């Protein structure tokens, strides 16, 4: 039964095959489920509960971030939402930008700006000072 026939398409399969897209696909679903709770909770508290957006000011933020619970909530939401959204934007750029150069530079812009926003938001949560000004 020995044979020299290779499995179909074995060359292209063995060449630089990674599971990155599979992990990305899975990440969208896992982060999505967590974000349903984090974001809907955030929107309910900020926009509907107890006067909604009208009561938000610096003192309100200071009161919330005095608690590690809301710090962790907001930090998780920041990272998950931007990675989830960033991966979604990557998919959309791959779908619609047809020229290699355009696709490459759009994704570079996406990665740089997303990294900047995640870093900025993280810095703000960790260095928040209620006694500022």
């Amino acid at each position: 039964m020995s044979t020299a026939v290779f499995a179909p398409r074995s060359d292209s399969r063995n060449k630089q095959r990674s599971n990155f897209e599979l992990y990305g696909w899975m990440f969208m679903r896992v982060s999505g489920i967590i974000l349903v709770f984090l974001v809907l909770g955030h929107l309910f508290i900020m926009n509907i509960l107890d006067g909604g957006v009208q009561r938000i000011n610096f003192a309100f933020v200071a009161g919330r971030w005095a608690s590690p619970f809301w710090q962790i909530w907001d930090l998780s939401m920041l990272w998950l939402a931007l990675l989830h959204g960033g991966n979604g934007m990557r998919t959309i750029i791959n779908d619609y930008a047809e020229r290699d150069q355009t696709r490459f530079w759009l994704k570079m812009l996406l990665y740089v700006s997303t990294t900047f926003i995640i870093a900025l938001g993280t810095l703000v949560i960790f260095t928040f000072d209620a006694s500022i000004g």
Partner: protein
Amino acid sequence: MSVEAPGFSLRATPIGTLYRGGEGMWTWVLHRITGVSLFFFLFVHVLDTALVRVSPAAYDEIIATYKTPIVNLLEVGLVGAVLFHAFNGIRIILIDFWAKGPRYQRQMTWGIAAVWLLIMIPGFYFMTIHTIDALFGSTS
């Protein structure tokens, strides 16, 4: 569902496809549009929140724009977009992982529409009551 002869179909949506025509396609389109919109809002929102590191006055000033009537209305749109994206995301997960998901994807779409309305009607009221009061309410 109507009775169909094998080989061809009178339905708008071809059998066996999820993303071509009908509910499956339009939820896909809406999912992309709401997703991109939310991503851009997220950028703006992290930037405006970052003003808490500048000064309380700077933060309060930017947050004041969120309380104006027009932006208040945009927030209702934001909540509506998030709700659709969240529910449709759950629908996508159920289609992928639940054995009967693909069969019930159409019903799930209309379920999303119903729950969305059920939340958005009181949501609209609570989100805009202050604005409505300020614009049209009797001054006491």
